[in-house]
């Protein structure tokens, strides 16, 4: 991490603390600032785990509500973003498990539906990357998403996922290799189908 990004990071951290102080002092509308700041990250993280827009949006919204309700319990030992991403990760994984239990068939249909929708928005390679990501385990998906958001250091990812830093590094390498292999296979198959 460069010196400039470290400074920017700590300024962000202080800003979040100031906003949280204001909210806890009674100016609850300040929470909108935090929502606006983190909604993209929360949604991306939830989407990478759930691979469905509606579910991801719901999970991200629930995470903001949970964070608001528990803001007083936030002990400031870590950054707000680290604490909040932990909430998003847990909410998304729980929602994903619930959806799988409710109906595997419906889930598959929705995934296919969302893939078809997103194919309009994304180019083919991006679509394959998303498909490859969807095939990984929840833990790998979370780790990769946090890594790709470029928001958290390995130590912070370890805080979110409850895994040791060394293990995170190994698992990240493994997951990125698996993703690259899957992407290569998918692109080869696509080329053969042409």
């Amino acid at each position, binding site marked *: 991490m460069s010196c400039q990004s470290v400074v920017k990071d700590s300024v962000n951290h202080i800003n979040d603390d100031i906003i949280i102080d204001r909210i806890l002092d009674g100016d609850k509308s300040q929470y909108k600032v935090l929502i606006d700041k983190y909604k993209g990250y929360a949604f991306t993280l939830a989407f990478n785990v759930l691979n469905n827009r509606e579910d991801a*949006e719901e999970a991200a919204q629930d995470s903001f*509500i949970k964070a608001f309700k528990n803001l007083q319990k936030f002990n400031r030992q870590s950054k707000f973003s680290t604490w909040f991403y932990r909430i998003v990760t847990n909410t998304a994984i729980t929602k994903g498990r619930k959806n799988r239990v409710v109906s595997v068939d419906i889930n598959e249909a929705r995934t296919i539906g969302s893939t078809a929708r997103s194919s309009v928005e994304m180019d083919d390679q991006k679509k394959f990357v998303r498909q490859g990501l969807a095939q990984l385990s929840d833990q790998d998906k979370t780790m990769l998403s946090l890594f790709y958001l470029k928001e958290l250091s390995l130590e912070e990812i370890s805080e979110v996922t409850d895994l040791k830093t060394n293990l995170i590094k190994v698992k990240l390498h493994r997951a990125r290799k698996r993703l690259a292999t899957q992407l290569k296979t998918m692109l080869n198959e696509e080329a053969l189908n042409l």
Partner: protein
Amino acid sequence: MNKITDEVLLDYIDGALDKADEQFIKKQLQSDMQLRARLHDLKKADKHLMGDILHPSVNFTDTVWKKISNMGSAPRLSLNGLLIVLAAMVTVVLGSYFMTDSIIDINLNVGVPSSVTEYVKVPEVELPKGINLKIISQILLYSISFLLLLILDRAILKPYFRRRRQLFGH
């Protein structure tokens, strides 16, 4: 560095190698086509996901804020209702216990002290033969149980689920 593994290549992509190793990889990449292809494959997924932030719906912030604002007005559990439910539960449990063990032996012909009967003529209470006190007690217990369930629903369950729906929308 003897063998350039995928792990080393990933560290190279992340800029996590020391200067000497980085230079070595750069040199190898110039001459080794296969290595260049491997690096390209590993970079491909990174290229699409690195720093790629997706955007939720336009009214995301408003929706969350509306749900948070509703939290204050969400119905709360009634303490009085809770106390009534507890009292009714205790009554039903005790009533059932005494009835099953036949501990209750209601005798309406309570003995009146003779000092009173000397001056006042107390009429004897005679219940009609058709009235069965046990059945009346049972009906009373069933009615209390029914009321208990009704209060449980109105005072505890309904407010709880309405609050949940308001907060989480499902």
